[in-house]
């Protein structure tokens, strides 16, 4: 059992079997082995996080492309719906329009959650097709009001879709940022420090080995000298 009085300054503290920074430890082969195992593990973890980061970035870019076209569609659909609303409102007058509007039922919008690369994002479920929307319009037969209501419902669908995409972009971006920080921390701080520590321990152990070798050689020559 060899122990060294020289402790490595960039030391490690064991915690749950993992290396962390903080205390001085001895430079022993056992410690060296464990450190090498930890380095390998951390490098694998860094690779996985990099892959996650790349996937998250790709997903955000895809969503951002969708976002821009979704927003344009949503705005266009709302403008169109307002045009039809204006026609119906003019035709029926304020009191007539208010009356037919009161016969429009509520739109059933439900929320759910789905995951994208482990990130929870909201999912909205609403009647997307004309036939599914009939429920809220079943009392509305005035032709211009009905057409305006259908346009509004379709537009609502596009805004809900946009909201879904925006919320997804926000959450995935936060996760991307955190993952990036972890990757950077591992790449720029943890791995270099660990590598440096391993190198210093290796050098220390080599030095000790060399010292032992020379000591053993001297002992041998002394013993041979006495015999003669």
């Amino acid at each position, binding site marked *: 059992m060899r122990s060294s009085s020289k402790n490595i300054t960039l030391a490690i503290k064991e915690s749950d079997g993992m290396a962390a920074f903080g205390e001085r430890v001895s430079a022993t082969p056992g410690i060296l082995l464990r450190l090498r195992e930890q380095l390998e593990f951390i490098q694998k973890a860094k690779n996985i996080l990099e892959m996650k980061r790349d996937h998250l970035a790709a997903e955000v870019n895809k969503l951002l492309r969708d976002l821009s076209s979704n927003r344009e569609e949503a705005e266009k659909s709302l403008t169109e719906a307002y045009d039809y609303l204006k026609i119906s409102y003019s035709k029926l007058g304020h009191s007539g329009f208010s*009356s037919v509007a009161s*016969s429009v039922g509520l739109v059933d919008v439900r929320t759910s959650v789905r995951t994208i690369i482990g990130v929870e994002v909201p999912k909205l479920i609403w009647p997307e097709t004309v036939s599914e929307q009939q429920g809220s319009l079943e009392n509305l037969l005035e032709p*211009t009001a009905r057409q305006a209501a259908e346009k509004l419902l379709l537009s609502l669908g596009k805004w809900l879709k946009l909201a879904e995409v925006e919320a997804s972009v926000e959450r995935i971006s936060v996760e991307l940022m955190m993952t990036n920080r972890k990757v950077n921390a591992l790449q720029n701080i943890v791995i270099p420090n660990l590598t440096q520590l391993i190198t210093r321990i290796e050098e220390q152990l080599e030095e000790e080995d060399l010292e032992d070798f020379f000591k053993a050689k001297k002992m041998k020559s002394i013993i041979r000298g006495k015999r003669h």
Partner: protein
Amino acid sequence: MTHLLRPDEIQKLVNADSVQRLAEQLMATDYSSEGELQGVAEMSRPRLEKLRASELEEVFLRKMVSRLFFISSISPVKVKEFVLAYSRRFEFENIKRVIRAKHSGEKVEQLIPLTKEQTLVNFEALLEAEDLATVIKMLPERRYAPSAESLNLYNEYNTTLVLESQLDKIYYRAVLLAAKKLKDRDVMRLIGMEIDVRNILTLLTMNVRKVKPELVEHLIIPGGTLRGGRLVSMVQTGIGEIQSLLEGTPFARSVGGAVEAIGGEIEMYRVEAALLAPFFERVKSTVNKSLGISYVMGYLIRSEIEAKNLIAITMAKQLKLSVDILQDIVLV
């Protein structure tokens, strides 16, 4: 009909820049005696700029109602019976508004203004009613109450359309009964055409907007000039065939162009305008050739159309709707 607005006056209003300008133009017409418009000339500029289309709407509705009931007050007995039956349309429209509001739990925004002398229905009590069932119980049974069948359909399909349609049937039955006693073919033809317009619009909307086809026969109002079979086919047939279904009717030519989809979309306001155009032409020709009861009928219809035109123009000015579209909505 000299106090009704002439086509050139309507056109001038269509081209007005704003609600305020429109109100100023109306000061030179029969509307200048109405409450709000009396004050328009004296309004300060800031107040005038706040003039809303909905304020003028009430003026137009009151004028329309008062004209119709004035005619009934000066008519001989048989004609009075008919004019009163015809004028009940405002009452029925108000009942429909209450029904819609109670069904959905909303408040009634505004009713067509009717004085106590102009209606048998206690609308204040109807508005206070807790729910739709109470409203129906409160309606004077003989004249207004929907049948048990329509109530069952309402409960089955959870739609007020059947109740509204039932009210329309009650209304038109009474009008046709009163009109028969006058023995005037032109009056019967005009009422029949009006019923046709309502039925065709209902069925076209059901076809184009894919509304429940099983309700069709309950929504058709009897008494029109078009027979039930032809009407029912309008729900099932392709929209392009509608014109051939209307062959031989006054509506065929005008509807043909309107039901063509523009950019894949059928504009319902154009379809409605196309259906109303031949009806309005018939009204004008009836008025021009007769001085009897059909002249009175023509006056009643034109008064109502004038009110609707003015409401449409005023709202369109406030909403900055294009003049092209407004020209389609307004009947001149």
